[in-house]
């Protein structure tokens, strides 16, 4: 579904309202040069007190907490966290499998992902973070470098809206993650909206590497409810969306095994993200995109506390 960028967030009434008051909190410290709403790894002039440290020669005496000296007769210096600007890359899966809609949802997985990423971009740009977009399938299909100025948001939304699914194309996670690694350079935020099927070993390694470097990685696993419960009856000829060979099967008989296999696949992905400290957010298309965002933000705020 290709939409006008200006109306991307208006697809679902209330989406914008629902998410406008949220602040996306990033747990990991973000190293950045520009002041922003996020905590920096460097202490500096900020309103947000961080901790007391024992004074040592060379410290700026302006930071000595005189009140603490009075109480304890010891020299402490006050350390303040400095707000940092966040660089976020939105990775949008444009492979064939994202074109699936199903009978029980109003969105294709791809449209759902676009709305999700658009809304998130809106929030981030609003709080002064820079946002870039990478669309990918087998190759990169959309590429927008991160910017933070307010005029960048329409561009982001326009790029997201104009992105389209590459029919019959597969997903090359490794390729796009390498690009993202190069783009981020330092610690930043990586938001990946994909169904995450067929994540290969190379991609897993790169993902772990990115996480290890301290990038805040969030995966929105976009899936249709049909993929979870295989709701079809009678004999169905299944056709692949990413060049797989079609099969004829009776879903009613396979459902149990299918769900088990899917569960195993999901467990593997969960284990990977847990090990890599990657935030995996389930984004079922049966929900509204804002619900997913609310859930995500809520989880983030909890984890920060």
């Amino acid at each position: 579904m290709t939409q006008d960028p200006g109306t991307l967030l208006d697809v679902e009434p209330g989406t914008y309202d629902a998410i406008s008051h949220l602040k996306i909190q990033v747990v990991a410290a973000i190293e950045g040069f520009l002041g922003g709403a996020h905590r920096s790894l460097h202490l500096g002039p900020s309103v947000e007190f961080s901790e007391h440290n024992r004074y040592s020669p060379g410290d700026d005496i302006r930071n000595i907490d005189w009140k603490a000296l009075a109480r304890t007769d010891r020299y402490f210096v006050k350390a303040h966290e400095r707000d940092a600007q966040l660089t976020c890359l939105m990775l949008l899966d444009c492979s064939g499998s994202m074109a699936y809609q199903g009978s029980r949802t109003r969105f294709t997985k791809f449209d759902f992902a676009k709305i999700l990423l658009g809304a998130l971009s809106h929030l981030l740009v609003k709080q002064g973070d820079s946002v870039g977009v990478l669309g990918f399938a087998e190759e990169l299909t959309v590429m927008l470098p991160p910017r933070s100025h307010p005029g960048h948001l329409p561009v982001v939304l326009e790029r997201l809206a104009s992105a389209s699914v590459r029919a019959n194309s597969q997903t090359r996670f490794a390729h796009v993650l390498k690009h993202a690694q190069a783009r981020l350079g330092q610690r930043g935020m990586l938001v990946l909206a994909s169904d995450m099927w067929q994540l290969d070993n190379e991609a897993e390694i790169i993902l772990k590497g990115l996480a290890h470097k301290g990038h805040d990685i969030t995966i929105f696993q976009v899936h249709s409810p049909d993929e979870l419960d295989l709701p079809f009856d009678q004999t169905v000829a299944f056709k692949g969306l990413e060049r797989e060979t079609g099969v004829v099967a009776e879903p009613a008989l396979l459902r149990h095994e299918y769900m088990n296999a899917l569960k195993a696949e999901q467990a593997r992905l969960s284990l990977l993200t847990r090990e890599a400290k990657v935030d995996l957010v389930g984004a079922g298309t049966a929900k509204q995109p804002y619900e997913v965002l609310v859930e995500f933000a809520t989880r983030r705020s909890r984890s920060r506390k």
Partner: protein
Amino acid sequence: MSFAAPLMLLGLGLLGPLFWLHLKRRPTRTVAFPTLFILQRVLKRQQKKSRVREWVILIIRALLVVTFSVALARPALTVWRPGGIRSGLPLSQVILLDDSASMQRRIPTPGQDETTAFERARQMAITELGRLRPQDSVAVILAGKPPRLITDGLTTDKEQVSMRLYGLHAGYAADAIDDAIYKAEHLLAKSSSAQKEILLITDLAGTPVHPETMKQMQTVFRVVGVTPATQKLENIAISDVAVLPAGGPEAREVTIRAEIINYSSSRQNVDVSLSLDGKPVARGLLKVAPWQTGIKDFHHRFDEKGIHFGQVEVGANVGPIQRGKRDAVGAAAVNDVFAVDNIRYLATNVRRSINVLVINGDARPGSYLDEAFYLQKALETPIPGEVPIHIQIMEPDMARVTPLESYDVIFLAGVTTLSSGLWERLVRYVEEGGGLFVSAGKGKPDENLQSVMPGEVDGIRKSDRRSHLKVGAVKLSHPIFHTLGEQSTGLENVKIKNHLLLKPNPAVEREVLVQLADGLPLLLERKIGKGTTLLLTTTIDRDWSDLPIRPGFLPLIQRSTRYLSRSLAFREPRTIDVGKTVSLPVVEGMQKLIVLSPSKKRTVFSANRLTGQANIWFRQTNRPGPWRVFAEMPESGGLTELQSSAFVTNVASSESDLSRKMKESGDLSRDDRDRYTALEGKLPVWSHLLMVALFLLFVETILVGMGLRKSHRKPIE
């Protein structure tokens, strides 16, 4: 298994669509699905299991269709159980009691009075009746020829059947087991009893049951023998008696030939005697080797014409030849257990032969060119049972001085001219009742000859070599031809080149017996006074036709001769086996026909039964001996004996062989409890099948549900 609603079995046709749907399953829709790789993985893992499951379900569904269809057809099983036929449902039993002549054999019983095979069989039948239950029905058929039902069909009144059995005796006829079985089957077919049985009580001799009869039999069939297998069977039997002409012009000299069979293991010296017309006339001894046939000839000359009855008898003093006394009758005579075949009846009709004079007007040296040659060959050929024909051939000159009255028939063969003297004598001969047969000569006959012929000759029709005429219509109703019926006359292929042409003359009473293909007469008859003249318009030799070499020539000449001599109605008395049917000819106007049995019992056929009948079938030939036939004709005013209808009956020679020819299949003296099963009834099994179908439906539901139950939609957490 039987079905109450067999049309429901058409439901089995659903198997076809069922298999088709299973094996040619088509997807109902196509879905482009993102997680196809997982589906592929699952499918690969489940392929074998899924295939087995599919086949199991298919088989169960097929069984479901079969059991439902069969159940709806309401099947019932025929249920048998051990314990004998008298322990199940009601039984209908037909007892075939062999009353053939061989059942008159004696069965020596040590320490008891001697009994016959039939008496023993009768006792067995009565015992069998006693074993039947009140609800069982029974019929008794006597299996001698012809089979007779002695009860009023199948009845439950065993007392009455027993009473009737007590009054029975063995007959003299041959057995007719096959016919009796058919009769019993017919009787049982009307019975609604669940169990049916045919029980044959016999001496196991005689004609075995034909395999085809056994094959077609619908009911249980048991054969029980009455004679002990160890009994030593010795029998001397007269198997045949024939009366043969001894030759000569008179048929009064005969040879009476008797065939005697020695059914014993020792050489026997048999005393054979001949009685004729109630008086013993000859006697002699005959040596017969064991299991061999001996022939005894008696030569006899009858003094009087007419029918004579007689009998050949094997004397009571029969015995083995003893060493040193070759012709003496031994003291240890053979134990002849079957005396009925020791006597055999005969009958003969003594009549002088037919004298025929052939006047050969065209005698030639080459015999095949001579008409008399062909006539002689045709007339002298003996016909069994017919009066012999004696022929004399002479030329016309010789005939002039020969007295004609001693001849029954005169043939004018190739004669074209008749002297006045011979003509006058011939005319007188015919007018007084003689028979004259005229065949064409090489030229036109003179006036004298034409005056005794059936027509005046107009000329001779001559055909060229290539063309010839064929025989057309034959008057089959004429006595000469009527016995042929629809059979061929043998004249169809006769080729006639030349023949006499007769002038039409309505004043002459003549009858055309055989026509040529173009309608001209070939054989004509004319009555002159008391006599008859036949004219053949072609020659008897091969000059004008090939008639003498055609198959119809001999019967034509023989029957014409017998017709002219009024001997066609003559026949030798018939000799038949007891029990066979005899055809008695009926003459128009016959008021009464009486058959007198050997025991002087009269069977009367009244005019009502005789009117419009050509023959009467007489079936009561129940004992051996001479049978005489009398008729009351309007012109005679009283009873006249029909000698040609007389006959004698004898015991069939097959009855004399007392050895076992049938196999016994059951012994009434034993308890058949363990040997037979009883029909318990028809067990309806459709309800059981419905239960099976429901069970199959349950299993099918479980099998299908097992996959579905596991696969119910449950969200992945």
